[in-house]
């Protein structure tokens, strides 16, 4: 990081952050290198696989396609911002229970895509789930258990994240 670069300020997982980085540096690299948030992964570097997905201003974006200058003033949520109060988020809990994560590399992006989908459509049908996750590739599961995870998360999402049965996130 160099102070020679202009400051970019944005909010990540509720916290205001300021970075000095080349304006065209990818948001993905800023998150991973400057902010040490390594949950978002690079799978393809061209917006095809979705493993770098984060939520920005209420939209799902491929952080490998966002120059950091575009994040000025943005509200960003990464996978690290899902769990709260030391407990897994209901979406995470559903993926754990249903086998929605196997190798785990697509998981952070898949969780953010699910969060985005459920925020816009709390009770999606199967076709809507398929469409909502179509930008996130998973090579392990064949998606079937991910669809099931989303259905279970949707039924649980109204319950609070401090659900007694939720797994410890510490």
């Amino acid at each position, binding site marked *: 990081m160099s102070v020679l670069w202009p400051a970019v300020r944005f909010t990540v997982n509720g916290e205001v952050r300021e970075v000095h980085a080349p304006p065209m540096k990818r948001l993905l690299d800023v998150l991973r290198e400057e902010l040490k948030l390594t949950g978002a992964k690079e799978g393809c570097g061209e917006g095809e696989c979705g493993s770098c997905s984060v939520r920005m201003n209420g939209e799902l974006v491929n952080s490998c396609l966002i120059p950091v200058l575009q994040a000025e003033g943005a509200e960003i949520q990464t*996978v690290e911002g899902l769990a709260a109060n030391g407990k897994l988020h209901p979406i995470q809990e559903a993926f*754990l*229970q249903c*086998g929605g994560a196997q190798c*785990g590399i*697509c998981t952070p992006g898949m969780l953010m895509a699910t969060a985005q989908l459920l925020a816009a459509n709390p009770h999606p049908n199967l076709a809507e789930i398929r469409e909502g996750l*179509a930008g996130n*590739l998973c090579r392990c599961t064949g998606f079937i258990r991910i669809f099931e995870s989303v259905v279970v998360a949707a039924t649980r999402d109204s319950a609070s994240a401090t659900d007694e049965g939720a797994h410890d996130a510490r």
Partner: protein
Amino acid sequence: MSTHATTRVVGAPVPRKEGVDKLLGRACYVDDLQREGMWYGATVRSNIPRGIIRSIAFDRKVDWNEFVVVTAADVPGENHIHLIIADQPCLADGKVNHREEPIVLIAHPDRNKAREAVSAVKIEYDPLPPIFTIEESERQDQVVWGADNLLKSFLLEKGDVDSAWAHAAHIVEGEYRTGAQEHLYIENNGMIAEYSAEKGVTVWGSLQCPYYVFKSLRSVFDLPEDKVRVIQTETGGAFGGKEDYPSNLACHAALLAMKSGHPVKMVYDRMEDLAATTKRHPARVRHRTALDSDGKLLAIDIDLATNGGAYATLSSTVLSRATLHSTGPYSCPNVRVRSRAWATNMVPFGAFRGFGAPQTIFAMERHMDEIAAAIGLDPVELRRRNFLHDGDTTATEQVMREPVILDRLMDRALEESDYYAKRQRFAAENRVSAVKRGMGVAAFYHGSGFTGSGEVVLNSLAGVDVTPDGRVRVLVSNTEFGQGTNTILTQVAAEALGIDYARVEMAPPDTGQVPNSGPTVASRTSMVVGRLVERASVQLVSLLRAQAGLGASYTTEEFFAACECYRQAKGEVLSTCRYEAPPGIKWDDQKYHGEAYPAFAWAVYVAQVAVDTVTYSAEVEEFWAVQEVGRVLHPVLAAGQIEGGIAQGVGYALYEKVVWQDGSMANNQMTNYIMPTAEDVPPIHVFFEEIPFRHGAFGAKGIGELPHDGPAPAILNAIRDATGVAFNSIPLLPEDLFAGLAASQPIEEPITL
């Protein structure tokens, strides 16, 4: 003893062992790790398929003083990647045999500068004529490997094939082809290496087989065992693609680390990973089959050829498994399989889920439907008349001593899919619809574990130990890459030890800490390694009963109290076991005769496919998978393995085409190499019939590769059913469907209203 009717932990959907870390995004994959003072490595590769290296020049626009540069001259030991045959150089020395062959390595403290400098290394060549296809290699006009281009050959013979033709009622021939397939794990290959004179080489990386990498590093660096350490980091998918290639990458990163005096990270981007690393072997399979008037197989004659690429890698063992799966789950008195793996100037092919079996099973199961059509028999009935049963022998004359329930699997698959009713309905609807629907079946087995005497040669060692703070650790070199190794093996240990699942964990996958329990390949982890963990656990309980006062029944706390009692008196609480072959296993590696596998997993898959004759797209609408994999250790993980394998198999059949240019992948981006997405996978219905296998962990057999074997033939058989046209090559893309359908019938005039 291992087939308990009731278990607490085994068979239960316990949470994935490392699941919470993965869901929180804190699981550490190699690119998430940093080392103090770390540099970044990059690779300069051949851009021609075959030739002599005339010169290597470094552009003066780059200040090379900032870089470290490594060539073959810097290799301290043998310049070969240790695998089966020492033919693949770690770095090309004087000549190149395929595009993307590594020639020069560079490292720099800045990741981008390292990558940018690759194009500033100018290599000049005297090109030699390359060959790319099986047919070019067979002709031997250009010999590019050994004396004759032949990487490996096998001849499997049973009975007398040549005499069978004379009294056959039917003889049916066919040729089938399968393309290359890319693993497309979402995490690219990556490695970090450190070197010091005192500690030798240490690598951290995304890999399946720590001890494979260990052996390569030892020979490339000429180091003793205690100066090489390999640690697997969380691995984001592998599918065989991280069985052999990580050895190359580990050696590269370690050479740069040694020369620079810094830790060096090398993580490929997607384009480099797709262009430079292994893929599934393309294959050509020719069948000639004799049947009697009842549709019983009299003779199977198979000529199998695979394209191995420029170096031997695992081509011989892939060919072996391809050969041993080529005749399908059928009984036939006379069999001949002649198989050959050919060298070309393609980027070397390597391990991929199924390991040769998907290629030959595609051919056999596609051929069965062509036989059925030729002799006027229902495809299901043809299979039933020839299924293996208890006591029958396979092509290698292995006697089926364990129950074979193919008819039961077929019954269930037909019932669940409503196969006959749908076929009838589709046949009627297809006459008046532009969308033609069909149903296709595939029946197959997959051998669990290493072939023949392979497990005896591996001589795996595994165990469990107990830490002073009250945790059991499973000691194996088998790795987790999504398939569930961590969960399954800790379940097995918890069950056999009679303690809580939460108190059992995996020891770090680090050759400095765990014994060599063999590679994580060949659907061997649950059955073979799980069994070792089970035995070691049972042995530990006996030890604690005999020497530490552990009672006949005990709580988890009493177990750990007994462990502490033992530790005070004797020291380390540790139990290890070595592999012991099930009795009566005899295998002749020369004649390819005998017990090819200790156990087989069996399956019948059904695909429902719709072919749109306007757009020429084929869509799998629904899929049914019925299998017998022994005892199911974890219902959620097992179903996940089957579903994931089927999705990959759907891609193999209908989407995933590697486009070649000068022997390397031209479409090396996710934008133009297309895998099934969430919108493409069909609903998949998974069913298990469980017959516990005495010599597997709590009755388990192999599961991981089986589901990749069946989808392609089931789907193409369904397309045959839908359209009446036989398609014998995969991948089958819309343009191929168009060509095949257009050739088979005159194009109808569009209806004008």
